[in-house]
């Protein structure tokens, strides 16, 4: 099962994961990653912009790539767009597989690519106004681990 979504409203990663796990009784394990707006740094809000002609198709291609690269039962990529409050979930990635190493690697791979390759633009509001966020060098290095 490939479950790729752009979400304009708040969502519950726990509930999404429960559904995903229930949909994969044949999988021994599900690895997941939830990214959320950090609440400790003076960030008052986060805004995520996307570009419809590219963003969802790009995520679907990423999901397909992960399915082709690891023996997965399924993959889930959910990503918020719009305005987010501190503590709100931004992204949920989950991979279901027979063997846990495959699930972990696929989830890790998907996150690295969502961070530095998916068509999202993020800005955060602090006391002094809005600031655009660019990927860190670290994000590009993380993605480079998967080159082959």
């Amino acid at each position, binding site marked *: 099962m490939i479950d790729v979504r752009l979400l304009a409203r708040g969502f519950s990663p726990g509930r999404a994961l429960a559904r995903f796990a229930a949909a994969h009784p044949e999988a021994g394990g599900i690895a997941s990653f939830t*990214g959320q707006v950090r609440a400790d740094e003076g960030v008052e809000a986060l805004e*995520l*912009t996307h*570009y419809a*002609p*590219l963003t969802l198709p790009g995520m679907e291609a990423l999901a397909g790539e992960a399915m082709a690269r690891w023996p997965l039962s399924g993959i889930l990529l959910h*990503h918020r767009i719009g305005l987010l409050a501190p503590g709100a979930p*931004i*992204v949920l990635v989950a991979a279901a597989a027979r063997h846990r190493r495959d699930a972990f690697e696929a989830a890790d791979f998907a*996150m690295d690519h*969502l*961070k*530095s*390759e*998916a*068509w*999202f*633009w*993020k*800005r955060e509001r602090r006391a002094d106004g809005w600031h*655009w*966020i*660019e*990927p860190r060098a670290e994000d590009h290095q993380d993605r480079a681990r998967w080159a082959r």
Partner: protein
Amino acid sequence: MADGARGAEPVGVKLVFLGRLADLAGAGEAEIAGPLDWPGLLAALPGPLAEAAATERVKLAFNGRVLPDKRALAAREGDEIALLPPVSGG
């Protein structure tokens, strides 16, 4: 993405500015007259936006597909060009 009614009424080339480029442009979208090639686009953009667009970090999407080579741009009225600065998702 524009398609369909091209020519039925005069429409320009639609420009879409993403991320910080929308701030530079002062708007998320603009429309300029076509046809438009790469030098034409740079000439049509306000200075700071043209400078940003010219850097390697800014990609161009043409009707929903990223151009491998920006200089190959050839847009007509009704087409959509998106200017894509470095992404930051997740």
